[in-house]
């Protein structure tokens, strides 16, 4: 396999190097890529969509159709991980461990054993015992709200500064994953259950595709946000800007839900009891 790999890599690499000789120089403002299609996006974005961030306007409007499917790809991955990994919950699998909240003492319950503990004073512990670190838990606890606030800002301010639905959604998703890493998976599941994260992704993508379909129903082409001027204030140009915002919110929801969903499935191997 190693020789075969080297031969293939050599051949492909030689081909790519051969092509690179005829590339326009790196960073050349006169290259075809900079002159043919893209100038219009930069010159007209404010005029046509009222969005100064050209990346956002291309992403959400000019090539919004791509972006819709890109969000669908994420959704596919979430459903795929769920389909492959999720194991329906089974009762009493193996020994369990509980920790007394006040004293920090850990109890081990044998397989099939029944206990009558006042559950408010005890909490379940992962079978591979993870150290219970007070500082990490508290610091993360205080950080997470600010991280989430920042995520919302990134989604909402994507029109004027770097950001948008994907970036904000990832930040929001990461905040839940951080909760799960710093505490344990159950804490994260209590905050955002399986059903919630699993419904967030189709609902998010549906907001995107639904906005497009709404334009179609209103008599314009699919994803032509001008149509929204009939429903929102501010004329056809501002309607494009609002349409992009709507779509970005959908993207953010879908990305956040799916990230958390994939993480839960992968980390717990589909059992949703413990992981990492």
């Amino acid at each position, binding site marked *: *396999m*190693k020789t*075969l*790999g*080297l031969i*293939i*890599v050599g051949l*492909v*690499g030689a081909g*790519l*190097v051969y092509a*690179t*000789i005829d*590339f326009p*120089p*790196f*960073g*050349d*403002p006169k*290259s075809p*890529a*900079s002159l043919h*299609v*893209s*100038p219009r*996006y*930069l*010159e007209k*974005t*404010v005029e046509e969509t009222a969005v*100064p*961030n*050209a*990346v956002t306007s*291309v*992403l959400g409007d000019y*090539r919004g159709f*791509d*972006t819709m499917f*890109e*969000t669908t*790809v*994420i959704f*596919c*991955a*979430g459903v*795929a*991980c769920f389909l*492959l*990994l999720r194991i329906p919950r089974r009762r009493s699998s193996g020994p369990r461990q509980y920790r007394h909240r006040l004293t920090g003492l850990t109890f081990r319950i044998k397989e099939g054993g029944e206990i009558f503990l006042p559950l408010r004073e005890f909490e379940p512990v992962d079978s591979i015992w993870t150290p219970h670190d007070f500082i990490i838990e508290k610091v993360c606890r205080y950080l997470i709200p600010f991280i989430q606030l920042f995520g919302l800002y990134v989604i909402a301010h994507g029109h*004027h*500064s*770097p950001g948008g639905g*994907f970036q904000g959604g990832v930040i929001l998703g990461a905040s839940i994953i951080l909760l799960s890493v710093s505490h344990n998976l159950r804490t994260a599941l209590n905050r955002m259950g399986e059903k919630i994260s699993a419904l967030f992704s189709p609902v998010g993508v549906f907001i995107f595709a639904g906005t497009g379909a709404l334009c179609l129903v209103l008599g314009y082409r699919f994803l032509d946000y001008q149509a929204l001027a009939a429903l929102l204030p501010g004329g056809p140009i501002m309607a494009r800007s609002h349409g992009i915002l709507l779509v970005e919110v959908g993207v953010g929801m879908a990305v956040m839900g799916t990230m958390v969903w*994939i993480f839960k*499935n*992968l980390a717990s*191997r*589909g059992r949703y009891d413990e992981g990492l």
Partner: protein
Amino acid sequence: MEAVLNLIIEKYNYWIYITLMMIGLYAMIAKNNLVKKIVGMNIFQTAVILFYVSTGVKKGATIPIIEHGHDVAHQAVRAADYINPLPHVLMLTAIVVSVATLGVALAIAIKVYHRYQTLEEDEILEQIREL
């Protein structure tokens, strides 16, 4: 000689992406461990992303957010002042795709591990042959 050196300096980003891509491709073909192959796959996809982003660069240009505000709103925009936004948009898509592929590949790898209790390809093939 000087021409070759010029060529190398003029296009350094492109050489880097080729190197990265070949590392990824080699890992996918030659490595024995399935997770290493998945890592190789990710490197491979990242190399393509580097290539695309490199095509968007313009020397002396800034990020593609048009300067705006109430006083400068009506000035004509010169495309040469801002880098090309299109490759960035495309690569946002490619990043998402590579994340999705990575997630699915890892999920399948977990399934493989469930069945064979190993991720070394030769050990798995041996188990299959014994059956």
